[in-house]
């Protein structure tokens, strides 16, 4: 029942539909009483020899009229109640999606996409069932059940009604018990299915690795193990699920039995007619559905309640980073001052950044060097305000970045991630991602700067080439360059290349850096790279080690320091010298 109260806000909102729908349901419940009564009357008139053509036509017309009326009403309550439940599904889905779009990356790191999908599909549909079928079964079991019992007691015999109802509480008790059992088992079955789903998802995404290692037999065996689990868990569900119908029909059967025995007694005693007894048994037949509905109701409510809880939990997740109330709605511009004393990723123990300070003037380029895990990405994440909880201050222009609306801050930043992700759309749409209505010139211009224009023209479909899921048909380097073009199209105040030239060859890298320099004279750029060649022109280079800045300066200054950067450079230099030595011989 709890779930109906939790959904109260929705029922209130759709008051009209639900009131009309429930009224119609009640009307059907009443009309349903007509046929059994008519059967009884006709039986009695046949038995008593009082049936005439006129009375037969009268009763049958009444029967026909009630049947047609029921048909019409049954159509409309469906629209009202089931229709409303679909509205709820639509609303919840939209709510979840909108919520997903506002959740920070840390939210996605904690969860598997398959699970989030399940919440937005299975859980929503379980809640929708509650608002549709749940309401139906609740109303129907109460009204139909109630009216039938009343009809039996008032129009036929209250004593017989009481006797016939004796076994009924057992039905309610047992279905309730089964429902409880089912809930837990169903949950396990769902979990097993979800594991199977995740496994499949993963193996298919990593199919190339699977093929490389030829572990298909072992992988299939693993899949079989998980599917055994699904069978086992679902068998447990079936063991309870299959109890409902037999229990109900047993209870009803006993009730029938009692009715016939005691009904016969009453008929013999002259308290009721044989026709009444036939009507009565027909009414008993009508009671089966409300009782079944009652069993179903628990099922639906249990599922709906669990699903609604999960949805509410998801929706209750707070955004990591929220705008201040009086946040500035201006696009940040100017110098960047980065002053972090310490920052630790939520859930980590050791800080990802320690005492990182630098100032980047507008139009300058910052190079960030360091091993994987040295803190390069952490700096970028903080700049983009993906995380807030740090000791220190980051200023962009005249304000700290927390003062700007997050959306305005991001508007200023063009980010090219390490992991390229393209959407299932045309190349044109992928590049024009931030502005789908942008002119062709701007798209090709961005593509030219990113050195991908010629590659695109080489495709038969050109800019209309559709890239599949995760852009399968493109090489890593091509994907990276599309990502760069995508970021360039928004003409960002700050362009961040997060190791995003790694899959591009040297020639292309140089061309990209060169055209970037030309096209973005006043704009600020941050490049992280493990290839020093990408950073040489930077106005400032910081060298990170275990989250701390160990060296800072221009290329020349860093070289003069003869420290870590110098070493790294020497390493590359050494390689060059070997090569040069070789070529001098020639």
């Amino acid at each position, binding site marked *: 029942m709890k779930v109906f109260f939790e959904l109260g806000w929705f029922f209130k909102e759709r008051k009209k539909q639900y009131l009309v729908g429930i009224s119609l349901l009640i009307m059907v419940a009443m009309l349903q009483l007509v046929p059994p009564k008519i*059967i009884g009357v*006709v039986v009695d008139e046949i038995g008593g020899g009082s049936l005439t*053509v006129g009375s*037969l036509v009268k*009763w*049958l017309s009444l*029967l026909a009229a009630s049947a047609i009326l029921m048909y019409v009403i*049954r159509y409309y309550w*469906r*629209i009202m109640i089931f229709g409303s439940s*679909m509205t709820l599904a639509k609303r919840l*889905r*939209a709510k979840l*999606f909108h919520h997903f*779009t506002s959740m920070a*990356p840390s939210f*996605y*790191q904690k969860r598997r*996409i398959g699970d989030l*999908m399940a919440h937005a599909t299975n859980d929503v549909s379980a809640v929708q069932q509650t608002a549709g079928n749940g309401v139906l079964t609740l109303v129907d079991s109460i009204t139909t059940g109630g009216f039938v019992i009343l009809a039996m007691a008032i129009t036929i015999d209250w004593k017989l009604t009481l006797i016939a109802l004796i076994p009924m509480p057992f039905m309610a008790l047992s279905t309730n018990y089964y429902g409880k059992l089912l809930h837990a088992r169903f949950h396990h079955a769902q979990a097993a*299915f979800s594991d199977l*789903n995740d496994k499949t*998802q993963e193996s298919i*995404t990593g*199919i*190339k690795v699977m093929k490389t*290692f*030829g572990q*298909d037999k072992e992988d*299939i065996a693993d899949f079989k193990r998980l*599917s055994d689990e699904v069978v086992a868990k*679902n068998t447990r569900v*079936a*063991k309870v699920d299959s109890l409902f119908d037999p229990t109900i029909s047993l209870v009803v059967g006993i009730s*029938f*039995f009692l009715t*016939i*025995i005691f009904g*016969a007694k009453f008929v013999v005693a002259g308290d009721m007619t044989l026709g009444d007894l036939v009507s009565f048994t027909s009414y008993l037949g009508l009671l089966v559905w409300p009782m079944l509905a009652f069993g179903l109701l628990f099922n639906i409510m249990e599922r709906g309640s669990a699903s609604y809880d999960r949805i509410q939990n998801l929706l209750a997740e707070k955004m990591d980073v929220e705008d201040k109330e009086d946040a500035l709605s201006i696009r940040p511009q100017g110098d960047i001052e980065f002053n972090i004393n310490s920052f630790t990723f939520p859930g980590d123990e050791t800080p990802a950044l320690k005492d990182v300070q630098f100032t980047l003037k507008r139009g300058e380029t910052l190079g960030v060097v360091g*091993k*994987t895990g040295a803190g390069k*990405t952490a700096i970028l994440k903080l700049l983009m305000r993906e995380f807030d909880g740090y000791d220190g201050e980051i200023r962009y222009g005249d304000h700290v970045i927390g003062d700007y609306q997050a959306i305005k801050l991001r508007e200023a930043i063009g980010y090219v991630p*390490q992991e390229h992700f393209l*959407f299932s759309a045309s190349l044109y749409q992928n590049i024009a991602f*931030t502005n789908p209505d942008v002119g062709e010139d701007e798209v090709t211009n961005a593509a030219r700067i990113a050195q991908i224009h010629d590659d695109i023209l080489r495709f*038969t479909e050109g800019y209309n080439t559709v890239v*599949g*899921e995760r852009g399968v*048909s493109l*090489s*890593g380097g091509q994907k990276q360059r599309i990502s760069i073009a995508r970021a360039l199209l928004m003409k960002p105040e700050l362009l961040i290349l997060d190791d995003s030239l790694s*899959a591009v060859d*040297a*020639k292309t890298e140089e061309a990209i850096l060169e055209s970037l320099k030309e096209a973005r004279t006043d704009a600020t750029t941050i490049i992280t790279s*493990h290839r020093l060649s990408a950073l*040489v022109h930077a106005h400032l280079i910081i060298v990170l080690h275990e989250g701390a800045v160990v060296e800072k300066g221009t290329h020349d200054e860093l070289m003069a320091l003869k420290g870590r950067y110098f070493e790294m450079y020497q*390493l590359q230099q050494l390689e060059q010298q070997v*090569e040069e030595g*070789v*070529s001098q011989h020639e």
Partner: protein
Amino acid sequence: MNEEQKITLTGKEQWHVLKRLLTYLKPHKKSIVIALMLLLITVLGDIVGPLLIKIFMDDYLTPRHFPTNTLVILATTYIGIQILNSVISYLQMLRFNILALKVIQQLRIDVYSKVHKLGMRYFDKTPAGSIVSRVTNDTEAIMEMFVSVLIGFVQSGFLVIGVYIAMFALNWKLALATVILLPILFCIVYIYRKYSAFYYMDMRERLSQLNAKLAESLSGMSIVQAFRQEKRFRDEFDEINEKHYKAVMSSIKLDGLLLRPVIDLVYAFGLILMLSFFGITSFSEPVEIGVIYAFVSYINRFFEPINQVMQRLSIFQQAIVSASRVFTLLDDKELDPQQLDDPSVKMSDGHIEFSNVTFSYDGKTDVLKDISFTVKPGETVALVGHTGSGKSSIINLLMRFYEFERGEILIDGQSIKNFPKQTLRQQMGLVLQDPFLFYGNIESNIKLFNENMSEEDVKAAAEFVQADQFIESMPNGYKHLVSERGSTFSSGQRQLIAFARTIATNPKVLVLDEATATIDTETEVAIQASLDKMRQGRTTIAIAHRLSTIQDAEQILVLHHGEIVERGTHQELLAKNGLYHKMYQLQNGLVQEVG
């Protein structure tokens, strides 16, 4: 989306799909026969119940004749049948349920095994999400059908036949008259199926669009957010959501018109038919009340299962569509390149020869043109060239990801097509540029289901590629959790784990597909050292965009637009003053600017 859209099936196609689905029942013949027997017994019980009451009414109640012994027997029989029926119907339902679960499990395993047999071409053109749907959701829909439609259908069939037999026995004239209900019901089912197929298709299509949008948005959320396209994505989602809602509403309306409400209408018609028959008969001859009672009971029982089956026709529709998609996948011919699987063909030295290989992905543009080269055992051949020059295609052919028709690839003098697949997989280790980690822990990722690998082997492999240090610094060491796609690791760490994975299998041939591209210089130096170690005694084919990493290769092939334009050692190529020299100078020059 492509195959998702094609879900209109003709009646004939549906029938074929259903027949094929039923073949999955074959191995369970015994179980089915038992379940059907149980079902038969329950139907018999259902039929006999009203008959007993009819006997009681007409033979004892109406004449007011109550012999105790006979009545006790009658009552005991009735109640006995009720109890027995409940027990048997429980067993029967459970049996059918378990049967459906097993059938679906087999189907799932078949689909999953088939997926493993499919070639890369299939994966190139099919989104992963839709393959996953085939394996899990579609099969789930089929199970729904087995449990609630097919079983219900059989049950209804049995019951309808039983009810008719009983009715004919009681009053053949009325029974004959009620036969008219059958064509009416049949028409309704026919019309409903015809229209619902259309609306249902529309609804399914909207749903799959909705899910596709959701899945893609979730995977690319960081990009959506970084480029503040949240609003656009919400709007797009809302639009699809609205369309889906409209489609669902249409189908609710159709259900309202042609499902349960109309069946109840027919039920009323049946009652009218019956009452008029008895009424009219009563004008000329006496009518037994018990017979009326029995007919009313039978008509009630007769409609209940029909109602249930009708209600679930949409499940049937969905399952047939799902099944046809599953079968399409099962029948897909885009298989992995076939091997001759001659067990006598063994890889001894790892001598690789490409001989005039020409290859095209789409059958139109050749991405490799007349490629010939030889790699001697233990030697390294490096492939350099621009992106799109054909480097990766060479590896794709060598790894047998794609079939080729023109030219030949020989390993130790034997065509690559003759080797057993297992040999190829065991002896050739590929390291991809984009390392893929599986959910599990570090150890399971290095083992990758290879149960023969001991913990020591795993550690040795990790040590070999110098991944041991960072692994041991993790809170749980080798058992450290790897989340989906290893997202908590840096790309360098992921690559190190992938290296260890390859080394652990101890391959004869090493294939490196820009394996060091995503690793920073310092890590790379370490990896380079272990790569050198790995390469000893192994034939190596390496793609590298950084020329410095491959200059000790015995042979370097320079590719350009699918052709080998230059070949030789590092020094030879430099002396040629050609493309390689240019590429070299470029990389060289870039660094010189630094200095």
